[in-house]
């Protein structure tokens, strides 16, 4: 283990395929055309001094430290902005060049504080390095001249400081914010000597447009922009590459460490999902892992109204096992089940489902994907043949038109959002279908050609209308359809969508989107070249979630937009490992690799390896478990890393179900909402404390590496293994590696996956097997996984959740950049500086009708319940629609969401709830009860602390 210092080539790689040969300091070098002299030199180990250049952004040529001489050329060109040419002869160092460089360094240093010894960058400062490299020995100008040394520090951002006295105005930060992040929050204020870096309009970082992605901090060659954690802890001494545990982008990070402490998380340049970029969550919000709320001792109790009792691991595991056995004896084999987590590793999800199937002896296993992307699994499997997105993230750089439906990439999948914005700045066209004006619709240098601002719950009508235009206006890619798709299914589908009732004109009454706009958007998507569709939970979390996914796949097939770079159907997966947990057989009807439990061949394969008889009938889904619990037939649950009491719809119902159970075992970092209903608490390990793999939204399997020992002594898979052993089903893995090897031996798409491969390749996209030893970036090339692509008709059935006089508004939900899902992690970090409560967004018209102004407390009442939030009056939402995020348990967003769910997969209809909104003075009854219950449970915890 050592500190990984990535080489900086100074300028980005040139994509050209044509090569050029030149001579640098007498050495021959061959590089792609368009490469800078600086990069060419660096590629053979000649590092030309530089300050304003770094290889994540385009060169700028402002510092002139990188001057060189070209034979036959004039003057001293900057090597970072000079492209190579055939036969060129370059000198990078001589007396004259050195003199120029020294002169430049002298000027810089004369206006730079000389406090290197106490500077946080000490030990890792490019300015210091350059002074050393050019051999600076004196500063003739003295330090008394006009300078910037008294400039004030800006510490407003919770994670990094801006100390302008150290700034050399190289503008790397400005360019990183523009090119890498795409936010354009920084500029140079003034000119000449007076020029300085200005966030927004010369204001504090926190007041500017900054989204705290950290790209500028990463790009800064001095201590001007610096992580506060480095101020506190000093420079790290070793680093370990691992994968972010927040969203489905799955960014690769270097955990830069000192002992067992993380000093900072630095996005990994070689990360294939993120290429050195990050967002505020992965980059900075890791403090939850060491938060004092972490519970690290196992606990048990008889009743949820008893205080907790701290016990040894052995006692906790034995108690849980004996309870499960007792329950199964009394209520039968099917009376218990388990939930895998989309936040844990593949290996851990695999083990939990194995425990349920082999040790419990039933198929009662489900996962949080039930409530988010289960329709994706179903819809894409039915049409294309594989339950996963078709592309890599990088594919978007080849897209000509991008259709975003029900997703908010800049908040939900920020690093991918930045990449998409980059492509949009290069000229790709954008269509957004969303009830709300998300940032992509219009923000600096990005503007949607069409914003189809549809009413929540009418996705299918909109998708059908788009399809109608494509088939009736002759926009179908006939060759593709004839060659690649099942023609009968296509004909049926075509006849269906061609019907007048599916036309944009007829759909307008449902969607509220002007027919002409839909027609134009459809034409654009179908005929602008490479068309790519990205979608999120705004598609899946509906009563017709699966139908919309199918409709999206239909659109892509009909326009020939599958099977190459730049196109495809791309679900933006919410959680870090939701793809992985689904792949690992977390559904009650499927064994790992999406193979039905009823399939004899699959079952006997698993039976022979696992050495048990497996149940052939699918088990219970989460909603079925709740119903059965309330009926009295489901009594015990093993829940790993999931917070159903907050995340699942109709909270009252979930609480009732949990209260009806006799043994709820929660394995988690914190006493989350579900743990408040638990009888056994098993402390979990954060991603920093374990080894395994995560699979992101592009099917990329990335390594998770342990950087510190588990706080409670065990990684999560070890706990599952102990529980299984106590239940009487033996497991004997000595490492996550052995689990992954078992997975690879059982799943054809994982056959070639191993930690060795990940060490060598960094990451790999499944399928990875004999046919595709290096993995599969783009799926369905040449042929669909299911053979012929299958079209399926998608009848629009309006949701039964309708507005009435009593409930005249539609509530829809979403999330925000700084917080992550139930917020258990991000709420325990400084990210609360950006978002400290969930608020109700309401259109000015609706607000005025109700006499509501921003900041008012309002009751949001649905058929299911009522909750109270503060309001934000904004035109982002359309009249008739209100919107909130769901990151705080006390918000009770799910107290009001209904029991409606997707017809195929039971994915809840979070996105459509008819509500009324009115101004109130106090909180709702549920919120008051919640408050009281939370207090009771915290006191139970406190009593345990006292007893322990």
């Amino acid at each position: 283990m050592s500190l990984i210092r990535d080489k900086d080539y100074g300028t980005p790689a040139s994509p050209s395929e044509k090569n050029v040969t030149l001579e640098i300091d007498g050495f021959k070098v061959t590089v792609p055309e368009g490469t800078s002299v600086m990069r060419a030199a660096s590629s053979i180990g000649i590092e030309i001094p530089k300050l304003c250049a770094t290889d994540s952004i385009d060169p700028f040529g402002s510092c002139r430290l990188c001057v060189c001489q070209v034979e036959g050329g004039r003057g001293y060109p900057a090597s970072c902005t000079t492209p190579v040419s055939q036969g060129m002869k370059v000198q990078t160092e001589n007396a004259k060049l050195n003199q120029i460089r020294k002169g430049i360094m002298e000027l810089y240093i004369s206006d730079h504080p000389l406090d290197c010894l106490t500077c946080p960058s000490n030990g890792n400062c490019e300015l210091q390095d350059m002074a050393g490299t050019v051999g600076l020995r004196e500063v003739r100008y003295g330090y008394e001249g006009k300078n910037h040394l008294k400039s004030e520090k800006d510490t407003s951002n919770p994670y990094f400081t801006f100390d302008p006295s150290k700034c050399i105005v190289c503008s790397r930060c400005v360019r990183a914010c523009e090119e890498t992040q795409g936010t354009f929050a920084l500029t140079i204020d003034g000119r000449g000597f007076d020029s300085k870096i200005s966030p927004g309009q010369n204001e504090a970082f926190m007041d500017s447009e900054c989204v705290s992605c950290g790209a500028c901090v990463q790009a800064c060659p001095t201590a001007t922009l610096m992580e506060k954690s480095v101020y506190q802890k000093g420079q790290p001494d070793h680093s370990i590459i691992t994968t972010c545990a927040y969203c489905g982008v799955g960014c690769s990070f270097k955990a830069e460490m000192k002992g067992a402490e993380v000093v900072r998380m630095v996005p990994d340049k070689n990360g294939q999902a993120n290429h050195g970029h990050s967002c505020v969550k992965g980059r900075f919000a890791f403090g939850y892992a060491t938060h004092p709320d972490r519970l690290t001792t196992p606990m048990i109790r008889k009743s949820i109204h008893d205080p907790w009792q701290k016990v040894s691991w052995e006692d906790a595991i034995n108690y849980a096992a004996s309870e499960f056995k007792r329950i199964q004896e009394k209520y039968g084999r099917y009376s218990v089940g388990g939930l895998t987590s989309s936040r844990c590793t593949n290996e851990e999800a695999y083990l939990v489902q194995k425990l349920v199937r082999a040790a419990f002896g039933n198929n009662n296993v489900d996962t949080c994907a039930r409530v988010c992307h289960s329709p994706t699994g179903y819809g894409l499997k039915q049409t294309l043949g594989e339950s996963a997105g078709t592309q890599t993230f990088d594919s978007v750089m080849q897209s000509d038109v991008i259709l975003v439906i029900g997703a908010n990439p800049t908040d939900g999948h920020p690093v991918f959002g930045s990449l998409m914005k980059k492509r949009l700045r290069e000229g790709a066209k954008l269509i957004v279908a969303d009830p709300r004006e998300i940032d992509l619709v219009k923000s600096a240098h990005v503007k949607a050609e069409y914003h189809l601002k549809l009413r929540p719950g009418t996705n299918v009508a909109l998708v059908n209308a788009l399809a109608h235009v494509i088939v009736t206006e002759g926009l179908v890619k006939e060759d593709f359809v004839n060659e690649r798709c099942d023609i009968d299914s296509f004909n049926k589908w075509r006849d269906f969508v061609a019907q007048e009732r599916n036309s944009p004109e007829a759909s307008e009454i449902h969607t509220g989107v002007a027919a002409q706009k839909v027609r134009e958007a459809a034409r654009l998507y179908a005929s602008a070249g490479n068309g790519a569709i990205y979608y999120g939970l705004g598609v899946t979390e509906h009563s017709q979630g699966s139908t919309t996914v199918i409709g999206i796949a239909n659109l892509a097939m009909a326009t020939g937009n599958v099977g190459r770079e730049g196109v495809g159907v791309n679900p933006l997966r919410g959680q870090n490992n939701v793809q992985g947990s689904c792949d690992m057989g977390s559904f009650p009807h499927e064994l790992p690799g999406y193979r039905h439990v009823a399939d004899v061949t699959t079952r006997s394969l698993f039976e022979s390896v696992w050495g048990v008889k497996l149940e052939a009938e699918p088990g219970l889904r989460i909603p079925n478990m709740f119903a059965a619990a309330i009926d009295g037939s489901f009594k015990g649950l093993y829940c790993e890393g999931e917070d159903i009491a907050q995340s699942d719809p109709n909270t009252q119902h979930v609480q009732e179900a949990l209260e009806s159970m006799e043994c709820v075992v929660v394995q988690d970092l914190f006493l989350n909402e579900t743990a408040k209903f638990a009888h056994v608490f098993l402390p979990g390990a954060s991603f920093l404390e374990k080894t395994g793999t995560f699979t992101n939204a592009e099917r990329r399997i990335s390594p998770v590496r342990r950087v510190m020992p588990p706080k409670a002594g065990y990684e999560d898979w070890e706990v599952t293994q102990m529980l299984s052993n106590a239940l009487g089903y033996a497991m004997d893995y000595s490492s996550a590696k052995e689990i992954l090897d078992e997975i690879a031996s059982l799943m054809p798409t994982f056959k070639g996956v191993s930690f060795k491969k990940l060490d060598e390749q960094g990451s790999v996209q499944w399928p990875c097997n004999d046919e595709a030893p290096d993995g599969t970036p783009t799926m369905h090339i040449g042929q669909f996984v299911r053979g012929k692509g299958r079209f399926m008709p998608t009848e629009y059935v309006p949701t039964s959740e309708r507005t009435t006089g009593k409930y005249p508004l539609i509530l829809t939900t979403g999330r925000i950049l700084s917080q992550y899902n139930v917020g258990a992690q991000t709420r325990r970090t400084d990210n609360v500086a950006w978002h400290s409560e969930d608020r109700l967004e309401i259109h000015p018209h609706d607000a005025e009708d109700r006499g509501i102004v921003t900041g008012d407390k309002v009751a949001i009442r649905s058929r299911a319940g009522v909750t109270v939030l503060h309001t934000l009056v904004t035109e982002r939402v359309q009249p008739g629609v209100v919107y909130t995020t769901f990151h705080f348990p006390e918000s009770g967003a799910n107290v009001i969401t209904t029991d409606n769910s997707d017809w195929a997969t039971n994915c809840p209809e979070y996105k459509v709830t008819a509500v009324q909104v009115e101004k109130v003075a106090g909180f709702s009854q549920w919120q008051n009860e919640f408050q009281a219950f939370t207090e009771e449970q915290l006191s139970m915890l406190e009593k345990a602390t006292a007893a322990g």
Partner: protein
Amino acid sequence: MSQSDWDKDAVTQLIDSLKDKPGAMLPILHGIQDNLGYIPKDSVPLIAKALNVSRAEVHGVITFYHYFRESPPGKHTIHLCRAESCQSMNGPRLEAHAKAKLGIEYHETTTDGNFSLEPVYCLGNCGCSPAMSINGEVYGRVSPERFDEILDELRGQA
């Protein structure tokens, strides 16, 4: 000076009328300054939104050109000449005096809102260097004493 004293509708109209022209940023900034005498800070978000750029970018352009002001000009705008002839004829002394006397730097306005100070490069009055102009009227051979007198006169008028 309060930032909200300007006519938002007029500025919005002006922005709308120019925003679709290529390179609309400078014409918009000139238009606003011509109308209001300066570019109010809180008009920047409107400009940014209309041009689909960030606030920071608009700010960068405004501060790059000394011509643009971010605060309302004083009642009287003093332009001091900094070009060659005046430089060689005691211009710097006048400059230092003016700044000290007014207690402001270039591009600033005195706290009482009376005077703004701006540099200018040759007023075409080189024969009578050092020169300055106030509210467009050119003065030659301005010694520090003369400077004070002129200012007193202007104050007297006020």
